[in-house]
Structures are given as C-alpha cells and as structure tokens.
C-alpha cells in the first residue's frame, strides 16, 4: 500500500511576517511587500525607481543564529535558518530525532547567494580576494541553504538541493515526498529560500521581465493576469516544511496540517527562458494522475503567475484547458512579489493557512484580466470557502514545471 505523506509544520521568513500565520494575515489585510530600494540605484545604472519585496531582519534576529553557524550563511541561508528554527519549535523534534539518520533536509535556492557572489567577484576586481572569509565559498555554493540548515540542526540524513530557479523549493517538497514514498527517510525538512540583489534584478531587466511601469506605484507593479501587467517584482524569503510519513507522525503523536497527495515535475525540452502551456498542462495532468484525481475535484489552483506577459499567458492557457472557469485561481505575487526559489515553499505555507482559516486569498492588482488570461475564475476578493484540495504550480527558467497537490486533513 502506498505510504501516506503529510505536512506537520511550516516555518516562514518573509517580507510580510516571520511566521506563516503572520504572512497570511498580512496578505489578507492587503499589505504589500513591494517598496522602493533607492540604496540600489547606483548599482542599477542610476535607475531611481528600483523596487523589490525585501525582508527586513532586525539585528537581534540575525544575531540569534550562533556565529559558528551564521558565518557560512548568505542572506538566503540565513532566512532559511530562521524558518527552520521556527519549524523545529512547532514540530517539537528532539536532537535525538534530528540526528537519527532518519530525518533529512532538502532545500534549495536559485543562486546560493547572489549578494555574496557579487562580493567575491568584486574582491577579485579589487585584488582583495585573500582578505575574504574562509566561509565565503560556503555562502555561495548552490546547496548552501541545505547544508547550512542541516549543519545548524545536526540533521544527518539525506541532504539534497534541486536547484531549478523559481521551481526550486516546490521541487524540494516534491523530492521529499518521493524520498518518503521510497521509505528512505521518516521526515524531511523541505523547502527553500532566495534573496534579491541588484544583479538578480538586472538579469530579469535584461530579459525585459522586470516590472518597471512608471505609471504604477511600487505596490501596484506586480499584477498577475492583469491586462496592464509589465513584468515581475523580485522578492525574497524562505520557508521550510516538515514533510513526514503519516506513520511517523502518528507514532510521535504529532498533528498533520495537510496531506501531499500528488506531485509531478517536467520540462519543455525546447525553451530555456520560459515554459509553455502544453508542458504545464502535461505537468498538472501528471500530478493529478499521481493523486488519482480528476480536474473537477480540485477546489483551488494556486498559480505561479509572476506578472510577466508571456509567463502568465502560458499558465493561464494551461489552467483554462484543464479547469475551464470552474476552479478559483489566484497568485500571491501581487503582494509578496516573486520570491524566486522560495516561492513554492513560501506560498505552500500560506496554503496551509487557507486550509485552517477556510479562506482563499485573491489576486491583487488585478483590475481587468488580459484577453489571453480571460476565461478563468480569477478571484479578486478573499473567498470564504474551505478548500479540500489545492493544486500549486511553480514554473522556472530552464522550461521547468512543478505541480504539488495537497489535501486538507
């Protein structure tokens, strides 16, 4: 019989709160994380209207992570470490359990740490490479988030990092689900983190994917599915979920928050800068098949929709093909920005609150859906409905798709 896999906790570091409950309440209240970053103007060719959805960490929160562990963390790993600590407090996992070899850590980000990569590059330019910390490389490597969390908590089971840009953390959750189904581990801390930095913003800008419309206030720029959408707003943060076998959950007397019932990941094999509707449909179908569900059994689709012209169009086309206008659809990125590699896990953490609160959060800044995004049930106000089954998409550079299906318990 197929093992059942559940989620028993979720720690969050976000621009709108330092727990999933705080984040959910901020989103429900309509707060936006998007702000001007004049401090980055100089690094961004004098652009006076740089915006991002940044996490503001108080110094005491940063220092609350012991230096021995913090020394190898860039911002991305630090966000994850704070989220992981929250998760341990919530789940009550003991040191003995964490170091039993039966608990793993699967976490990832887009680039390790763009901030620290830039610092290392500048050290080469300035001929001061050997003045850097011995830990600089540990801040930069692509699996920095995973080993920093595992090392801080003494986790000695599986450690993996499926780094696939904006699908990273959803793939981490999916990979954890698969590891548990295979019986390799009993519980996995799964998720991811990411950070914004001028080099990240400039990379999206180069591709004409960064939202910069001067007619909008900063908090209005990210507008998934809207006719006037003009690109994404980069955000940052982290979320780690306790993904656990139901058997282990029951054995330790823990309470599941949701069940993972389906997962799939795929790629286009044809395009590196975006996915296409056909491959997104295929990915969602594979996840539904894994869950043994028909599309009409899904109560809500949590879209990836980042507010780019092409990305939203392709995802909307795919959702319309599978679900028509029957299922409520929204993206959280209008308020939270696109938290890149963290987005899958961060938004899944919010979905857990939708289950417990009996509320589906709406799209923000959606004044009028664009023609190519029409024909969907794009909600614009919080929906007082307790979803039973949620389908969550993530789509990434490399033409990568990931779909997770979770069920209320």
């Amino acid at each position, binding site marked *: 019989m197929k093992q059942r896999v559940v989620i028993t906790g979720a720690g969050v570091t976000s621009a709108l709160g330092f727990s999933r409950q705080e984040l959910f309440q901020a989103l429900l209240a309509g707060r936006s994380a998007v702000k001007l970053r004049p401090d980055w103007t100089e690094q961004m060719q004098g652009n006076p209207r740089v915006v991002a959805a940044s996490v503001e960490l108080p110094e005491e929160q940063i220092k609350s992570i012991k*230096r021995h562990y913090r*020394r*190898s963390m860039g911002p991305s790993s630090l966000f994850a470490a704070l989220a992981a600590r929250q998760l341990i407090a919530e789940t009550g996992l003991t040191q003995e359990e964490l170091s039993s070899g039966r608990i793993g850590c699967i976490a990832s980000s887009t680039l390790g740490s763009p901030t620290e990569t830039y610092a290392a590059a500048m050290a080469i330019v300035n001929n001061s490479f*050997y*003045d850097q*910390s*011995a*830990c600089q490389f540990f801040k930069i490597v692509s699996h920095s988030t995973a080993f920093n969390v595992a090392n801080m908590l003494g986790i000695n089971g599986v450690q993996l990092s499926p780094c696939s840009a904006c699908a990273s953390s959803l793939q981490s959750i999916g990979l954890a689900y698969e590891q548990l189904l295979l019986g390799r581990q009993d519980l996995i801390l799964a998720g991811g983190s990411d950070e914004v930095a001028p080099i990240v913003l400039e990379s999206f800008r180069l591709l004409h994917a960064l939202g910069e419309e001067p007619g909008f206030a900063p908090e209005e720029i990210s507008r998934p599915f809207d006719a006037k959408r003009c690109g994404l707003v980069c955000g940052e943060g982290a979320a780690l979920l306790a993904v656990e076998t139901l058997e282990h959950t029951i054995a330790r007397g823990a309470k599941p928050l949701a069940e993972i019932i389906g997962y799939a990941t795929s790629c286009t094999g044809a395009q590196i800068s975006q996915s296409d509707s056909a491959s997104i449909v295929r990915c969602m179908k594979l996840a539904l098949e894994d869950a043994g569900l028909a599309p009409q059994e899904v109560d809500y689709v949590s879209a990836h929709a980042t507010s780019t012209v092409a990305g939203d169009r392709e995802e909307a086309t795919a959702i319309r093909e599978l679900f028509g206008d029957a299922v409520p659809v929204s993206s959280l990125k209008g308020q939270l920005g696109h938290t890149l590699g963290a987005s899958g896990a961060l938004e899944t953490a919010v979905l857990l609150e939708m289950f417990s609160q009996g509320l589906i959060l709406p799209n923000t800044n959606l004044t009028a859906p664009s023609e190519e995004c029409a024909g969907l049930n794009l909600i614009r106000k919080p929906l007082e409905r307790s979803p039973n089954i949620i389908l969550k998409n993530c789509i990434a550079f490399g033409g990568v798709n990931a779909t997770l299906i979770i069920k209320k318990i």
Partner: protein
Amino acid sequence: MTREILIEHINKVFVDKFELDPAILTPEKRIFEDLELDSLDIVDLVTGLQHTFGIPLRDNKELLQIRTLGDIYNLFEKIVQEHPELEEKLTKEQ
C-alpha cells in the same frame, strides 16, 4: 610599544571576527577548546592578523604552532621586535 597595546590589537581581531566578549580574552585561553574556534576560523584569524599587522602571514610556520592566546601574544611580540616599523603603525592606529 607596550605589550598591552599589542594585546589590544590582537584581541580586537578576535572580537571583530569571532564576536567574542573581550572579557574572556586572557592569555591562558586555548584557541580551539576554550574559544571554540575551528580550522575555518583559523584561516580568518590569519587574514585578520595580516590586515592588522600589514605583513603576510599565510605561510608563517610558527603561527601554525599556536595553542593559546598567550602563544599569539608572544609570537607577535617577537614579530614586532623583528619589524620595528610595525611599532609606529600599531601605536598610531591605537
């Protein structure tokens, strides 16, 4: 230059790099066991001392033999005697 000034400069490296409380920085403290530094920290310690004293130390064999904070004070007392120009630099930067 007094030994006190030298100690002040060395201790500053430990405080800045490793966030240690200056009050615990006494000569008998063992670098690994008492101050809880490890091999990665030693790389940073050497970098910090290089920066403070303005001399290359990465290949200094004697530095590899240090066990206590007192060993570092003694080693740098010797280094300063061998490089009198350091005395002026450190006194000025105090």
